[in-house]
């Protein structure tokens, strides 16, 4: 999850998406990738050696690459880490449409996978044996990378959501930590009344958060079947979300701060923001971004939409993929598998990454890890429980990247101008449908 783009980059991304669409019509000369690749082929390739170009920003991949090179001395991993999602997708789409400089391995977030998979930008990993890895991963991430029998990447991390809350603030004003979203609204009122400077959360309109909450509420606005797409935000479960969030907006209980800005980090540190519903990867950002509030924060399960309901949701998370135009497919796959299904997972978990593999999620070592930042809380227990409770039938649009980029022009209006949230969602739906049709999808 990262902040949505500036207008300029948004335009660029759009441009490259169009270019990507254009190449999809023309090129399909990657039949060689579809032949089955045996474990023997991969071993032979590892012995022969070569270079694998990897575009990824995940910080722990650096040591994974070093370990891999140690294990297979003839293989060189050339890790290009640009550490920023928007530029990453722009560059990736540009390279694919120019058919030049395409990396052998690319990190792609779950929400953006559909876009690349559908335009044949990615290699199907099933012939490499990736389809047999399904049982290794928790259902949410696996569902995100696979479609029918095709597997478009191996899940690298997951973002089961939790409610991070500032215990110091809740204790100070003697407010109970909410377990349902109704209690959440109530807590928001109490805290803001006790101290007008305190807000329950910062939300200035964020596509990732909105889709995650809809997911948790049981709404399935996007139905995707190949190029047939259905978009509908008008079901009863979506209403649960709009009703609740509308109260928070109307009563001005949300701080109008954009996520991932310095203001946001400041608000998390100085007690302005009492909670943060976010993915399980958040602790790393807390540690370096909000050092002054060490010990104040804790993690709790996401509030439920109806009391006793355990449904959880994902936010963010990404996979490693093999772009169709990349080279050294066997080596590339060997690296991806090493990083996301074999020894690499351990290395990454030790450095604070959140795994998508069930064995690691359930290991006692992982679950018993004490977080100094959260006052010694074994926060992974909360996250692992959340991961287990994620419904696996969610899908994003094949052009979610575009849809997210227009979120602020549609739903975002509800946050600033008195438009109703439900109307905002309708506008988002209409704009997404229009774009989908222009791109050649059959959209309802």
């Amino acid at each position: 999850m990262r902040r949505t783009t500036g207008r300029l980059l948004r335009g660029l991304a759009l441009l490259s998406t169009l270019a990507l669409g254009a190449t999809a019509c023309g090129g399909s000369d990657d039949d060689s990738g579809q032949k089955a690749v045996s474990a023997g082929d991969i071993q032979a390739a590892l012995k022969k050696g070569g270079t694998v170009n990897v575009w990824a920003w995940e910080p722990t991949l650096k040591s994974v690459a070093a370990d891999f090179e140690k294990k297979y001395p003839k293989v060189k991993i050339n890790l290009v880490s640009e550490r920023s999602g928007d530029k990453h997708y722009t560059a990736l789409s540009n390279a694919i449409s120019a058919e030049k400089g395409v990396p052998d391995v690319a990190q792609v977030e779950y929400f953006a996978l559909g876009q690349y998979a559908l335009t044949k930008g990615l290699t199907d990993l099933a012939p490499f044996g990736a389809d047999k890895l399904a049982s290794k991963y928790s259902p949410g991430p696996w569902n995100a990378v696979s479609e029918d029998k095709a597997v478009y990447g191996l899940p690298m991390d997951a973002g089961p959501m939790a409610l991070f809350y500032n215990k110091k603030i809740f204790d100070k004003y003697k407010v109970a930590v909410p377990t349902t979203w109704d209690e959440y609204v109530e807590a928001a009122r109490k805290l803001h009344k006790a101290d007008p400077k305190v807000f329950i959360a910062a939300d200035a309109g964020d596509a990732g958060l909105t889709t995650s909450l809809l997911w948790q509420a049981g709404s399935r606005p996007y139905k995707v079947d190949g190029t047939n797409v259905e978009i509908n935000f008008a079901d009863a479960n979506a209403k649960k979300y709009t009703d609740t969030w509308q109260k928070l907006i109307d009563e001005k209980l949300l701080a109008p701060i954009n996520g991932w800005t310095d203001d946001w980090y400041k608000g998390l540190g100085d007690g302005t923001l009492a909670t943060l519903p976010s993915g399980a990867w958040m602790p790393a950002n807390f540690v370096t971004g909000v050092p002054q509030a060490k010990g104040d924060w804790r993690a709790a399960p996401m509030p439920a939409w109806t009391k006793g309901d355990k449904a959880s949701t994902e936010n963010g998370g990404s996979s490693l993929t093999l772009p169709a135009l990349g080279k050294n497919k066997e080596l590339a796959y060997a690296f991806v598998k090493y990083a996301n299904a074999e020894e690499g997972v351990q290395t990454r978990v030790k450095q604070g990454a959140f795994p998508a593999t069930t064995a690691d999620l359930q290991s006692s070592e992982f679950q018993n890890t004490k977080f100094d930042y959260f006052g010694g809380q074994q926060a992974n227990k909360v996250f692992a429980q959340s991961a287990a409770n994620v419904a696996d039938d969610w899908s994003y649009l094949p052009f979610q990247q575009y849809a997210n980029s227009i979120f602020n022009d549609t739903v975002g209006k509800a946050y600033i101008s008195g438009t109703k949230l439900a109307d905002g969602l309708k506008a988002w739906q209409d704009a997404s449908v229009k774009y989908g049709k222009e791109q050649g999808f059959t959209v309802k």
Partner: protein
Amino acid sequence: MSTPVTTASPSAPAETGGPGKSAPRLRGPRRHSVGKPKRSVLLTVMTSLLVIYTVVPLIWLAINATKTQTGLSDSSGLWFAHDFALWDNIRDTFTYDDGVFTRWLLNTLLYVVLGAGGATLLAVLGGYALAKFDFPGKRGIFAMVIGAVAVPGTALAVPTFLMFSKMGLTDTPWAVIIPSLVSPFGLYLMWVFATEAIPTELLEAARIDGAGEARTFFTVSLPLLAPGIVTVLLFTTVATWNNYFLPLIMLKDSDWYPLTLGLSVWNSQAETIGGEVIYNLVITGSLLTIVPLIAAFLLLQKYWQSGLAAGSVKE
């Protein structure tokens, strides 16, 4: 040249006697406005606002470069935090991520030396030729240069990217250097400057004395063009030093990033899952980035000012 200087001096006692009494009417107000400028409250206020507008961000930058990440969040923006961490920040800026900041600094220098230097060279050669030689199509070139001045470089970046990508030049330093070589504004400035600064009679004299065109250019014209060259060099240096958009779309490999792009990458780490938040290094890095520019301006100020004033006074 010396007369205007004494007139401008505010300590000239003769003028305090009484303007308008003995002096002719027309001269009175002129001397008044040059020698003893009338104080305008409005102008003073506007100038002060402008000064605040331009200086406050610099002060903010300098103050905040002394803070740690913690200090940044829990202290006021325009005053120091308890901890003074400037030296630590500078050291960390240069050592963070295997000293990549130094690499970016050297990249920027490379782009400036080759890009801005090359652009200046081309502008000087082109401007001189356009000013002092007659050839068919000159008017057309004039229209083209003026037109090119009006097109912002940003608008050309994407088409340039597509072109360079076809030639296989993207993701190499050349993708940044080659477009930087073209400076329509610099060319126009050199053209105008050369027209004014080099008397055609001088060139004719040199030619009559038997000097070839190359010799005429290097020994006669170039020294006369020096102030103009420095002006153009400053313009192109600043433009290349601050260039962000072109490298952004041309470069992928962060090893070739200039400082502008590198710093934005550091900044965006805060927006990345699991990314380390290093606002303190971003701010310190920004401060270090503008230091060479300030130094260049101070050092070249003399030439730059005489360049600006060239042709403004009739000799």
